[in-house]
């Protein structure tokens, strides 16, 4: 003798399934028989009701329903805006660093221009006199040097030092490019001719 059947077993019995033992219990148990008949009756009523004309639907809207349905969309829009803002902040350099970079570039270009053209005056460079060169060598070697010789050396050294100091101390922070040195232009034109 088995215990009373569960609802699912009774349902399966109504579907024509279940074991022989369950069927015999159903026949012998009054309580299970009543429950089984109730399931069959309810199922018949439900089926007959749903087989009738489908009733029309009335769409009812409530503010709470719309609010909760809108939440995922609002969250998505906010997330998209936040991502766009973050991306723009990440990839766009700020103005101060841009100006600083521009100044550095200008300074570098100015120095390059000075090195090429200004100090330039390659055409104006006086050819080193053999006397001053000889004096420089003599002083460097610690040889005896006459007063004229030492004077030539000092004069040459002072001239070089002055030109270097001038090049280093010149203010270079300016964005304007200098015009091309006329001496350089002359030199270039002489070479092309």
């Amino acid at each position, binding site marked *: 003798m088995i215990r009373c059947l569960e*609802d*699912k077993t009774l*349902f*399966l019995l109504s*579907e024509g*399934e279940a074991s022989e033992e369950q069927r015999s219990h159903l026949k012998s148990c009054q309580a299970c028989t009543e429950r089984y008949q109730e*399931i069959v009756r*309810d*199922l*018949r*009523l*439900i*089926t*007959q*009701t*749903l*087989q*009738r*004309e*489908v*009733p*029309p*639907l*009335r*769409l*009812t*809207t*409530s503010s709470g*329903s*719309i609010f909760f*349905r*809108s939440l*995922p*969309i609002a969250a998505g829009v906010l997330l998209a805006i936040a991502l766009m803002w973050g991306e723009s902040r990440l990839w766009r350099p700020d103005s101060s660093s841009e100006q600083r970079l521009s100044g550095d570039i200008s300074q570098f270009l100015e120095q390059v221009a000075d090195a090429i053209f200004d100090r330039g005056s390659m055409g104006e460079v006086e050819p080193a006199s053999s006397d001053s060169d000889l004096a420089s060598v003599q002083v460097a070697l610690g040889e005896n040097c006459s007063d004229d010789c030492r004077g030539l050396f000092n004069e040459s050294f002072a001239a070089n030092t002055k030109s270097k100091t001038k090049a280093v101390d010149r203010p270079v922070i300016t964005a304007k490019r200098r015009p091309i040195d006329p001496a350089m232009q002359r030199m270039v034109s002489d070479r092309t001719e």
Partner: protein
Amino acid sequence: MPDKETPSFEGLYKAHHLKVQRLCRMLLRDLAEAEETGQEVFLKMFKQYQTASWPNDWSAWLTRVTVNACHDRRKSAWWKWWRSSNGEVQLADYPSSARTPEQEALGREQQIHIWHAFRELSGRQQEVFVLRYLEGWSTEEVAKTLAISEGSVKNHLFRAVHRLREALKNNGEGL
């Protein structure tokens, strides 16, 4: 190409369009959407009609295509979930003609409760219930059409029947 002995497309449409529309209205919440889906089904039927491979049973073929079309429509229309609101059965427009003594005994409110409970079932439970009890298909046919196992069909059926019976009992207690 159909000959004179085979049913015409118009004849098939007249014979089955009410059933297709009813199925769509049962399985979809939105009336306009149900009509669109019904038109899609008959468009598929028209294309099938023009081919050489006709189904043995147009009624079963249409039922299967309709259920699958409604299933696809429910899956793809996520935005309509947001758009749609709670559907309620209109009391005033509900047909009141009772055909059997049991239906006469069953109050109008109770019928509406059953419809509410049916609307609250999951899509799969609705499909299984409709095919098994309203169309009279076997469990095996339902499983094959919906591409699920027979065990799943029985589980869905049991849950659907359980919820519908609960609605019936709750209404009976409330009366």
